[in-house]
């Protein structure tokens, strides 16, 4: 419709102006014809996602059972020779702050002496406490200063006895715990 009206106007105008108007109208008409309806180009959609991380503490020991036998005596002193076990390891993970690892036995009054010590701590911010004597069932600090970290250490058990302790056997259930400092 637009183009046909302009063509009618050309009849009364000189050739050079008519020609320019004609070309302009032709271009506009072509643009209108080719401009097919376009809707919703390159649409997008969104959603909300929340990732929440709670405090998590995990500890694990490699040896589920340790057997220590005192069956030798020193030729020099005549006292029983200590039994040592360093075969086990302790691994842990915490994303909390200011944690420590404690150790305790369930044996409230052991006859024979058992000591435990954390050695060769790796991949962690923790620091080993001095060797612990498990002579009662209270919790003792094993590794301290553990914060947002994972780690591993060797567990060294030393079992000893005096001649006066006689012979026999004892069982300990050793528990390791990650707890707040």
């Amino acid at each position, binding site marked *: 419709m637009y183009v046909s009206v302009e063509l009618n106007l050309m009849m009364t105008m000189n050739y050079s102006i008519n020609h320019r108007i004609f070309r302009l109208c032709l271009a506009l008409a072509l643009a209108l014809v080719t401009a*097919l*309806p*376009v*809707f919703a180009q390159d649409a997008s959609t969104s959603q909300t996602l929340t990732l929440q991380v709670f405090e998590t503490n995990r500890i694990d020991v490699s040896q589920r059972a340790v057997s220590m036998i005192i069956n030798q005596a020193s030729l020099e002193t005549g006292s029983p020779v200590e039994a040592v076990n360093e075969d086990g390891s302790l691994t842990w993970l915490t994303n909390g702050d200011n944690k420590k690892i404690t150790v305790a036995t369930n044996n409230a009054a052991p006859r024979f002496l058992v000591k435990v010590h954390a050695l060769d701590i790796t991949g962690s911010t923790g620091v080993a406490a001095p060797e612990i004597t498990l002579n009662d069932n209270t919790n003792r600090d094993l590794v301290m200063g553990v914060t947002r970290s994972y780690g591993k250490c060797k567990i060294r058990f030393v079992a000893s006895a005096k001649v006066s302790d006689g012979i026999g056997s004892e069982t300990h259930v050793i528990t390791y715990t990650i707890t707040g400092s």
Partner: protein
Amino acid sequence: MRDDRRYLSCWFSVAAMIAVLFGVFASQALAQLTLRGTANPTISITTGTAGGTMTSVVNTSSSIRYTRQSVITKITVRTSCPSQAFTLQVLATSVTRGVAAPAVTLTSGMAAVDFITNIPNTAGWTTATPTLQYTASATFAQGNSAELGNDVHTVTYTLQAQ
């Protein structure tokens, strides 16, 4: 000589009668069936559902008028649409004289199919004007007019003896 003139006269008379009869019937045929309303409707599909289909669009801006004949008649429909990409159906609605066929799917190059049948020849009416209900539909897989161009159907209706 007299036989020749009779022979030529006979031929000219027959030719004249045929020409007149064609003219009469042609002019009558033009008035028996006409399309009314929007001359050349355009149906635009503009929306669709994610994971679903494009939204079909219905157009009822056209109608078809036909007149009573001396015999029972019907109306057929066919279409031509080169490079057809989308789907178009047509259905006669508000039919007062005759029986509307189910919606016809218009496919380019199709043979004419029944559109309205059993149009009575009994007295009591002169014309009927049902609505042409066009339904355009498309799937996402069929594409769009920007890439493929519009479908332009030439839809032809014919009133004929049943």
